[in-house]
C-alpha cells in the first residue's frame, strides 16, 4: 500500500492502493493427501457392459450372434466343394513353393545370384569364381540346418507314432492342417480360398478434415479449415454413428450450419438423413454437435418399442418411451401434467406421432380415452373400442362431439377441482394435484383422462368457442389429470389460437415448410435457436420432429410399429382394461346461442347487466352448457357479435357489463347479415 503524503486536515486526501505487480496467480500445487484419495468419488465405469445389463439388449445380442453364426456356417458349408477344389489346386503349388524356397535358401541362391549371372554374361570367370566362393561358404552351414530340421521332424513323428501313439484321426488332422497351410501358401495373394460372407455397408470414418472441409464449403463465413476447433473428447463413436462436437470461429452461430443441413450432407457426400447437426444446449451458440450415422436413418430401422412387448403396462405418472432420437436412444415422457401440441405438414407423420402418445395412455388401464379426429379417415378406428368417446369425420356430428368433449372436460375440471380440494383436506393430495394413488382409487373420480383431438384446426374453425374451452382445459386440467393432445397441420392465429399454443408446454414440431410455421408451433425464436422442423422432408423423414418442453429439446422420431404390432398393442390394451371402457361418454349438449341466452336472462326493466351477473344467470339458465363460465368468458364470447364492454349502473356504482341496447343492436346486425 502506497500512501500519498497528505495533510491530516486535508479533506481531499486519498489513498491509492498500488496494484501488485507480478507474483503467482494460480493456486499453489499441493500433494494429494491420504484423505483426498480415500474420499474420491469419481464416476466408476460399470464392470458389466451396458449391452449385457439390459435384458432386451442381451436378447438382441444373442439373436444377432445366433443369426450371424448360423448364416456364416451355412454359407461356408454350401461352398465347401468349391473350397476343396481350390485347395486341391493350391496345395501342391504351396508345397512346391515352400520346398523350392527352402532349397533356394540352402544353396545360397538369393545372395549373389544376379551378380554371378552378370559375371557370366560378361564372360568374367574371376568375378564369378569369387562370388561363388562366398555363396558356397554360406550354403554349407545352411544345408546342415536343413538336415537337422528334417531329422528333428522325423524324430518327432516317430516319437509321436511309437511312444505317444497318435490315433489315425490325429494323423488325418495333421495332414489336413499341412494341406491347408500348403494351400494358403500356394494361393495367389488376391484370391482368398474362402468367399466373403457379408458385404459391409460402406461408411468412411468421420474425420476432422471432412468436418472442416464441409463447414468451409457451406460458405457461412468460415474461411480456413483450421478455424474450426474440436473441444475434447474430439470426434468419437456415439451410438450407431460418429459425434463431432466443434466450435465455429468468431461470432458465427451454430444455427447457420443447421439451416444448411443439405449442404453439409452434400459436402460430406452422404444422404441428408445420415447427417444430424444440432446445437448444444447449455453451451455457447457457436458450438455444433454433428452426429453422422453409420447409415441413413431411413435404412437404420428403429429399435423395438418397449410398449410393443406383450406384457407392457404403463403408467402415465412414469416416464414412457414414445420415440427415438437420431442416435437410436428411446425418448421418454411423463404424460401426467402434460399437454402436447403436435404440428406438421401433411405427410409428416402427425397422426402416428399422436398415436404413440395415445398408446402410452391406452396401456395404462386406469386412463380414460377420448379421441376425436377430424381427418375422417379413421386413423384411430382400431382404438375406438377403448375410448369412452370417439368421433371421426369432418361432419357436424363429429365436430359437435369434439366440442362436447371439451365442454365435458371443462365441467369435469370443475368437479375434479372440488374432489381434489376434499382430498387435500383429507391429506391425500398434499400438492393439490392428482396423485398416482388417487388416480388408481376406484370411485375417486380422479382417474387420468387422455383427450386427443387430431386435425384440431377443423374443430376450432367450426366452433370458435371450442378454442376458448380448449385453452381453459389446457390451463386447468394439468393438475387434475386431464391430458390434452392437439394435432394440427397449421397452428396459425385463425386455426389454432395463440393462447392455446402458449398454454401447451410440450410441442412436437414435425416436418414444416418454413420458419413461420415452425415458430407458430415451437414458439417465437425457436427457429433462430436452431430448433426447427424445416430440416425434415415430409414422407422421407415421416415421424421425425423437434420436441420442446420435454426435457432437453431435440429431434425425436416417433415409433412406427408394423400393423400387426399395432394390432397386438391395441389387443393388449383391451386385455389390460378387461374389455371395460373407463369413464362415460359425453352428454351431447345442444349448442346454445349465447347472444340469445344473454338477451333472455336480462330481466325486464334492466338496462344492462355486469358480466359477472350475466355469467351467474347463464349458469342457472342452462347448467349443462354454462357450468363454470366466468365473467371474462362471457365478455369474450359476446365480443365477436360486436357487444362492447360498457359501464352498467348497479346501485350507485358503474360496473363493466353488457348493455341491453348493445345486445339488441348485435341481434339486429346478425339478422341483417343472415339475410
Amino acid at each position, binding site marked *: 500500500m502506497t500512501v500519498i503524503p497528505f495533510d491530516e486536515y486535508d479533506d481531499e486526501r486519498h489513498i491509492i492502493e498500488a496494484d501488485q505487480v507480478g507474483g503467482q496467480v494460480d493456486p499453489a500445487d499441493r500433494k494429494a493427501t491420504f484423505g483426498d484419495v480415500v474420499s474420491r468419488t469419481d464416476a466408476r465405469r460399470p464392470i458389466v457392459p451396458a449391452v449385457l445389463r439390459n435384458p432386451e439388449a442381451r436378447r438382441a445380442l444373442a439373436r444377432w450372434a445366433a443369426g450371424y453364426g448360423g448364416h456364416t456356417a451355412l454359407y461356408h458349408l454350401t461352398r465347401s466343394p468349391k473350397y476343396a477344389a481350390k485347395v486341391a489346386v493350391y496345395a501342391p503349388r504351396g508345397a512346391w513353393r515352400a520346398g523350392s524356397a527352402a532349397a533356394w535358401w540352402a544353396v545360397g541362391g538369393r545372395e549373389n545370384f544376379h551378380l*554371378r*549371372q552378370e559375371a*557370366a*554374361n560378361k*564372360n568374367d*570367370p*574371376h568375378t*564369378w*569364381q569369387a562370388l561363388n566362393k562366398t555363396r558356397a561358404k554360406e550354403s554349407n552351414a545352411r544345408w546342415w540346418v536343413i538336415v537337422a530340421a528334417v531329422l528333428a521332424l522325423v524324430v518327432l513323428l516317430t516319437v509321436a507314432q511309437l511312444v505317444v501313439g497318435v490315433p489315425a484321426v490325429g494323423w488325418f488332422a495333421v495332414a489336413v492342417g499341412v494341406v491347408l497351410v500348403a494351400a494358403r501358401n500356394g494361393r495367389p495373394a488376391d484370391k482368398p480360398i474362402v468367399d466373403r460372407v457379408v458385404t459391409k455397408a460402406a461408411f468412411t470414418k468421420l474425420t476432422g478434415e471432412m468436418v472442416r472441409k464441409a463447414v468451409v464449403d457451406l460458405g457461412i463465413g468460415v474461411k480456413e479449415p483450421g478455424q474450426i476447433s474440436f473441444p475434447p473428447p474430439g470426434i468419437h463413436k456415439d451410438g450407431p454413428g460418429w459425434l463431432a462436437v466443434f466450435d465455429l470461429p468468431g461470432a458465427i452461430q451454430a444455427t447457420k450450419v443447421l439451416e444448411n443441413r443439405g449442404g453439409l450432407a452434400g459436402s460430406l457426400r452422404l444422404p441428408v438423413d445420415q447427417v444430424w447437426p444440432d446445437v448444444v444446449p447449455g453451451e455457447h451458440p457457436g458450438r455444433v454437435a454433428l452426429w453422422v450415422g453409420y447409415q441413413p436413418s431411413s435404412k437404420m430401422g428403429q429399435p423395438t418399442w418397449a410398449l410393443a412387448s406383450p406384457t407392457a403396462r404403463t403408467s402415465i405418472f412414469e416416464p414412457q418411451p414414445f420415440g427415438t432420437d437420431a442416435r437410436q436412444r428411446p425418448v421418454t415422457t411423463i404424460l401426467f401434467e402434460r399437454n402436447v401440441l403436435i404440428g406438421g405438414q401433411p405427410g409428416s407423420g402427425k397422426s402416428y406421432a399422436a398415436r404413440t402418445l395415445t398408446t402410452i395412455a391406452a396401456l395404462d388401464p386406469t386412463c380414460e380415452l377420448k379421441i376425436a379426429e377430424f381427418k375422417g379417415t379413421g386413423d384411430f378406428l382400431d382404438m375406438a373400442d377403448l375410448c369412452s368417446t370417439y368421433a371421426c369425420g369432418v361432419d357436424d356430428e363429429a365436430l359437435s362431439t369434439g366440442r362436447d368433449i371439451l365442454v365435458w372436460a371443462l365441467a369435469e375440471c370443475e368437479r375434479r377441482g372440488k374432489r381434489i380440494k376434499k382430498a387435500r383436506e383429507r391429506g391425500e393430495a398434499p400438492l393439490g394435484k392428482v396423485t398416482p394413488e388417487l388416480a388408481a382409487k376406484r370411485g375417486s373420480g380422479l382417474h387420468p383422462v387422455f383427450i386427443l383431438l387430431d386435425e384440431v384446426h377443423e374443430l376450432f374453425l367450426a366452433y370458435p368457442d371450442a378454442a376458448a374451452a380448449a385453452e381453459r382445459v389446457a390451463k386447468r386440467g394439468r393438475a387434475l389429470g386431464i391430458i390434452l393432445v392437439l394435432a394440427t397441420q397449421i397452428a396459425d392465429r385463425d386455426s389454432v389460437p395463440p393462447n392455446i399454443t402458449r398454454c401447451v408446454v410440450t410441442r412436437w414440431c414435425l416436418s414444416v415448410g418454413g420458419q413461420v410455421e415452425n415458430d407458430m408451433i415451437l414458439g417465437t425464436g425457436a427457429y433462430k435457436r436452431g430448433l426447427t422442423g424445416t430440416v425434415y422432408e415430409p414422407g422421407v423423414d415421416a415421424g421425425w420432429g423437434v420436441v420442446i418442453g420435454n426435457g432437453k429439446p431435440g429431434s425425436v422420431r416417433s415409433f412406427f410399429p408394423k400393423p400387426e404390432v399395432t394390432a397386438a398393442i391395441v389387443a393388449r390394451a383391451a386385455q389390460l382394461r378387461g374389455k371395460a371402457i373407463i369413464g362415460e361418454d359425453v352428454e351431447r349438449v345442444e349448442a346454445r346461442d349465447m347472444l340469445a341466452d344473454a338477451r333472455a336472462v336480462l330481466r325486464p326493466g334492466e338496462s344492462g347487466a355486469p358480466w359477472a351477473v350475466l355469467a351467474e344467470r347463464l349458469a342457472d339458465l342452462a347448467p349443462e352448457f354454462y357450468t363454470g363460465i366466468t365473467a371474462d368468458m362471457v365478455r369474450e364470447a359476446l365480443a365477436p357479435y360486436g357487444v362492447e364492454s360498457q359501464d352498467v349502473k348497479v346501485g350507485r356504482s358503474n360496473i363493466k357489463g353488457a348493455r341491453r341496447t348493445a345486445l339488441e343492436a348485435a341481434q339486429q346486425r346478425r339478422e341483417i347479415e343472415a339475410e
Partner: protein
Amino acid sequence: MRGTLVATGVVVVIALGYVLSCIIRPFRDCWVCDGKAHHRSKRNPKLSRPCRWCRSTGKRLRIGRRAWNRVRRVQRDA
C-alpha cells in the same frame, strides 16, 4: 514307339539339365589348358606360357551360355 518316347524323354532331360547348368554353373575348365591356365613346356617343366584361349583364367563359358549371351547382345543392340 516306346523306344522313341524314352529316347525323347532322355533328350529332354539332358537338354533341361544343360540349360540349368548354363545358369548355375556357366563356366567350365578351359579345354585347351584343362583348367590350368598355362601351357607347360614338355621339355622344360619350369617354362610355361599363358593359355591364350582362356586368357590364362583356366575357365571358359559353356557353349550354350556363350550362344545365349550372343543372342542377348544381338537383341539388345538391335
